[in-house]
């Protein structure tokens, strides 16, 4: 066991994967010599060579496309898109090719590619370095979408993603790369070393994709979230001294709908929290699934807390961010007596 932040945990996952499987390759902009702008691939090229850890041209469409071709020829590419905000030139290759190859060829071909990309805001990144476009990928059949919220899960999920026979979009909430974030930017940053999930095994382990994690067991209200917002929501519930049942879904495709259903049927109240824009966000799918399965158990309308339906504004980042106050208001509304 070691204390690791998310960057070190992800680095450790790739280190292990490169070491145990000669078909694993890492590619992306600045990932090689420099080790990535967030340092996630630091040291890997030096250790495994420039044929296995490749610096690429700045061409996200090309990065995704050559990863598909590499996977068809037996490699397991782990591609980095420097910020998920830059992924759109590769969207056609993801949607029309990567996601559908197995289906369209009736299983004759598949491309088990992992695409890692930092997502989310709270780092003064403005609208081009803060996006949370997970719903754009969740809506595409044939790709898994994973969003870890802590170092332990990040490493185990990335190893599971690399070993998955199907493609994975692996979104890394960059605000919590170095430590958990509870929603108040004026408070001193906390390191992962003070959090139990900053304790990470040094060796190989997997966290299965498609299984949610119960962050906190409670009986008054269910909070369904993922990524950075898991921590913010936890802090908001604590501030209100609510006995919340908090679920970190960890992967939105496939989704552990059973864990969510069990929780909401038990508490009868539900708040969904994500950082992405709210309209047609993944919370809409969650709310629909929950009302289908839990309608007769609900004591209050399901609440969704998300980013506003605007681009991420640089100067008004903390007004935009769905922080503890907005979550607390939503929690208070669902807790109102029938």
């Amino acid at each position: 066991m070691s204390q690791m932040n998310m960057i070190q945990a992800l680095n450790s996952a790739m280190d292990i994967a490169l070491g145990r499987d000669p078909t694993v390759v890492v590619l992306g902009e600045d990932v090689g010599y420099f080790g990535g702008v967030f340092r996630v691939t630091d040291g890997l090229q030096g250790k495994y060579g420039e044929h296995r850890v490749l610096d690429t041209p700045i061409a996200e469409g090309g990065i995704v496309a050559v990863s598909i071709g590499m996977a068809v020829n037996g490699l397991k590419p782990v591609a980095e898109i420097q910020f998920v905000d830059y992924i759109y030139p590769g969207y056609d290759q993801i949607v029309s090719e990567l996601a559908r190859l197995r289906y369209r060829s009736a299983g004759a071909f598949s491309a088990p590619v992992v695409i890692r990309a930092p997502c989310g805001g709270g780092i003064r990144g403005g609208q081009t370095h803060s996006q949370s476009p997970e719903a754009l990928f969740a809506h595409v059949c044939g790709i898994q979408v994973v969003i870890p919220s802590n170092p332990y899960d990040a490493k185990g999920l990335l190893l599971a993603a690399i070993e998955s026979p199907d493609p994975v979009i692996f979104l890394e909430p960059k605000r919590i790369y170095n430590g958990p974030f509870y929603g108040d930017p004026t408070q001193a940053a906390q390191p992962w070393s003070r959090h139990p999930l900053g304790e990470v095994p040094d060796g190989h382990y997997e966290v299965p994709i498609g299984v949610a994690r119960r962050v906190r067991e409670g009986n008054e209200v269910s909070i369904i979230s993922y990524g950075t917002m898991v921590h913010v929501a936890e802090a908001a519930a604590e501030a209100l001294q609510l006995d919340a049942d908090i679920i970190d879904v960890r992967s939105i495709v496939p989704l552990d709908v059973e864990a969510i259903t069990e929780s909401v049927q038990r508490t009868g109240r539900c708040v969904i929290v994500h950082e992405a824009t709210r309209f047609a966000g993944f919370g809409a799918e969650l709310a629909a699934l929950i009302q289908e399965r839990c309608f007769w158990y609900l004591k209050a309308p399901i609440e969704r807390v998300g980013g506003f339906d605007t681009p991420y504004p640089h100067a008004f980042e903390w007004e935009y961010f769905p922080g503890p106050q907005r979550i607390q208001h939503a929690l208070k509304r669902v807790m109102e007596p029938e």
Partner: protein
Amino acid sequence: MVTRSRLHVPHAPARPGQPPDFSYVRLSEAGAVGRPDSTAALSDCAPLADELIRVLDDQHHAVGPWNPAVEAHELQLGLRTMLLTRLFDERMVTVQRQGRISFYIKSTGEEAVAVAAGMALKNDDFLFPSYRQQGLQLVRGAKLVDLMCQLLSNTRDMCKGRQLPVLYHNAAGHIFSISGNLATQFPQAVGYAMAAAIRGEDRIAASWIGEGSSAEADFHQALVFAGVYRAPVLLKVVNNQWAISTFQGTAGGEQRSFAARGPGYGIPGLRVDGNDFLAVYAATQWAAERARRGYGATLMELVTYRVAGHSTSDDPSRYRSKDEPDAWPLGDPIERLKQHLIALGAWSEAQHATLTRELEAEVAAAWSEALSFGALNEGPQLDPQLMFEDVFKEPPPMLVEQRAQWLRERGGS
């Protein structure tokens, strides 16, 4: 003196009602273009991007340094495969008109760009075609009946009813699944080739796109990656002059050849007579040898003509001169190879007529067999449950749930 900017809109040389005009197609004499060594420096390959590599002359002789000196029996096999491709195409358009299949795409006039290239490559080189290189399937041993079952979406459909007709795949023949989205296969082929180099394999990759789709970003990205990593890949632009109704000038072919884009990325560009079986064969061999020796990618423009409509949903008489196919200066690839073999004394009109009848019978027999496995709306049918398979290797719980609900609600099952 011009004092204003202006927008230049390329115009097709001839539209319906006008005489065809192919004066824009720059030709070289057969045998006139020099052949540098396949390991030549980029600068020594420069003329190849603008001239036109041709081997067969007007007297049907193979001439010049690009003559690949292919044995007569190999040429006969090439002729047979091109002819089979054409007869297969003809028959499939007929059955489409009869309503037996929903859609078809012919390769008439372009058979050499697939067949000659496919034959010049090794059998385990990996191919990423577009939708108009069915000749590759035949080169790589696909059975007509299997292709037809795909066209029919019947019980033996390799795609299990999921793909439009002609979007075949052929894992055993090392041919990738064909996409309906244009140009996506070009950078994928580069990735495949990069992996081959990383793994130390002797195999190379080859891909085909149309000149129209060379305008896509995928083309640019393919060339950037192929150039940067010197990937062992052959990138082929099939310039058949027409992208549905849009002529090649609108794709950027007016000022420079498509081959000339290669050198800008550090890749040799070869402009090749795509209707000359021997020229396509020789240029492919040259590029394959270059790739296998570690000198990287080659961009090849195959100058040809799309004799048929874009697809069975297209009527080319609405946008181009009806006499164009006859006026096309590079002739017909099958006729030219046939005449060459006759000039060699290795073929005759009588043999050709016999072969045509044999292949027609082969196509007819395959069609009967294919129909016995059903058609889109008649005969034995695929199990619709197949639509739920292969989204992922194992279906996720919610897809299992959807399948169960569908089974309950359709009743009887």
